[in-house]
């Protein structure tokens, strides 16, 4: 029972982090129809920047999170302006190559500044909660709570505000959106800023219970891709649901199968599902 609860909590934490990253990825896919391979680098830069703010400048944890989110949002906007907009009319292949170029560039820059070593981002929430004989680290509970709060905020923003609806409108029909006076360039910038901030927050939430290193985004971004393909490219509920599926698969897989191969579980599951159903679990998204 206790072990089961432990695995469920692990699955929820992993799932929350993956969902946040996948949400940003799927938002960009909905707008631009490109797989943004550089998204994982934004996640990694977010963790490093928070590490810098908290470790070197002594900014409190939550302040560092806000700072990292702002910086990564700006970085994401810059990447839209400088890399993806000039490639708007180029073949998809070129976008993908440019995105990988950006990913490896950011990784190399971070490695040049902070080195290839592992770092740890300290969180002030190291307490452990005891409830009904069950044990739960506060940081994990915070991850789940913060992630769900963010998802709710994103949902309300997209559904209830004019600015949010412009994103949905652009994802539904680019020309139609232009006809009713939506500025596609501005909405693209906004989407990149939101997705960058989501990635940074996910990284800062997860960093205290994992490690900070240059390649930390690689696995996360790949899992996020797996998630949005399974959940339907461009679908927000799909990203959240897919994130939870992968999170739980990994936490239970690590417990019941093998910790060594826990990172492969997500991909093996993906390869298996795609071999049987090449159109994903929930087809009907943009394809």
């Amino acid at each position, binding site marked *: 029972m206790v072990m089961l609860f432990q695995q469920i909590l692990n699955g929820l934490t992993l799932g929350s982090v993956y969902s946040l990253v996948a949400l940003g990825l799927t938002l960009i896919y909905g707008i631009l129809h490109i797989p943004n391979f550089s998204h994982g680098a934004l996640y990694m830069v977010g963790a490093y920047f928070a590490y810098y703010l908290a470790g070197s400048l002594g900014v409190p944890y939550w302040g560092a999170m806000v700072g990292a989110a702002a910086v990564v949002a700006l970085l994401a906007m810059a990447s839209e302006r400088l890399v993806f907009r000039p490639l708007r009319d*180029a073949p998809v292949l070129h976008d993908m190559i440019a995105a990988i170029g950006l990913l490896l560039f950011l990784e190399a820059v971070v490695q040049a500044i902070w080195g290839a070593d592992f770092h740890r981002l300290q969180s002030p929430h190291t307490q452990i909660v005891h409830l009904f004989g069950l044990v739960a680290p506060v940081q994990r509970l915070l991850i789940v709570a913060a992630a769900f709060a963010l998802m709710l905020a994103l949902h309300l923003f997209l559904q209830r505000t004019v600015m949010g609806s412009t994103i949905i409108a652009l994802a539904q029909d680019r020309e139609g959106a232009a006809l009713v006076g939506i500025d596609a360039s501005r909405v693209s910038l906004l989407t990149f800023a939101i997705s960058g901030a989501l990635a940074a927050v996910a990284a800062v939430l997860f960093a205290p219970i994992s490690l900070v290193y240059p390649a930390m985004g690689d696995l996360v971004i790949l899992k996020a891709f797996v998630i949005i393909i399974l959940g339907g490219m461009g679908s927000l509920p799909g990203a959240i649901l897919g994130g939870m599926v992968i999170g739980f698969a990994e936490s239970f897989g690590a417990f019941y199968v093998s910790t060594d191969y826990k990172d492969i579980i997500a991909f093996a599951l993906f390869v298996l599902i795609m071999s049987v159903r090449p159109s994903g679990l929930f087809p009907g998204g943009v394809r």
Partner: protein
Amino acid sequence: MRRLLPLAALAAALLFPVAAPNEYYLYVAALAFIMAISATGLNLILGYAGQLNLAHAGFMAIGAYTVGILTVDDGVPYWAAFALAGVIATVMGVLAGLVSLRLKSHFFAIFTLCVGLILSLVIEKWSGLTHGTTGLIGLQAPAPIGPIRFDTTEAQYYLVLGFLVAALWLMHRITGSLVGRGFVAVRNGEDLARALGIDAFRTKLLAFALSAFYAGISGALYAGFVRFVGPDLASEGHTFDMLAFILVGGIGTLGGPLIGAILLTILTQSLQFLQDFRMIVFGPLLILLVIFFPHGIVGSIRLRRARRAAWTAGRKVRAHA
């Protein structure tokens, strides 16, 4: 001119050991050639058949590990292991292709990225077979063929050069054949190709298998030349190096990958401090290339020649009218 240029390049490559100041130059050049063979294979699936296969380094690692494991742990003769490396990489390529090629464009790219990651994770974790993160040490140089021995860098350079020439010649034959035209037809428009009676899936699968074969052979050469095989070989950064070679030289051209491999090797060698941080230069370089110079060196030359031909032809037509 068209026939002269490759022959001149070959002559220069043959004479290079005489002109090279020391052995290190030969070593670097041979390594660039090995990478060029692998990149030529990637260019087949990417440049000719239009599929971005991000698992390519994984197939090169399969070739290298086949040779490494068989010769070090099982005592199999080098050339037998070498042949098996090509076969196993091809078989793995067919298996991966059977699953991944059912997906289109970026779904394929993401899927192959996952395949590449699985390959490198398996190589890293399955230490019983692959020796894990320490890698395989103490590989032998390629065994002598008759009287020809390959224990000096110079001899190995010529061996690699021979394979490179064979690889390029084979690629030339493939891309010039009807099958090669089929690859290009699928790249330019899968539905159109299908309407012409081309089996798009089988065509792509063939391109995938051939590219994996190139990767396997190149990996086997790498194992015999560097005499060390580590899990780094399968990393996506390695696939990306080859992508850079192809883009600089010219995507979808025969000589492009080789020219790119040589130029970028010279660049990284002359900026030695860049070794670990080469992506700080390579990353933006690639972005600028796809934005401003997407055809690469060979592609741009070809495009200019085509434009000039069109212009002269147009003038002739106008003169007749």
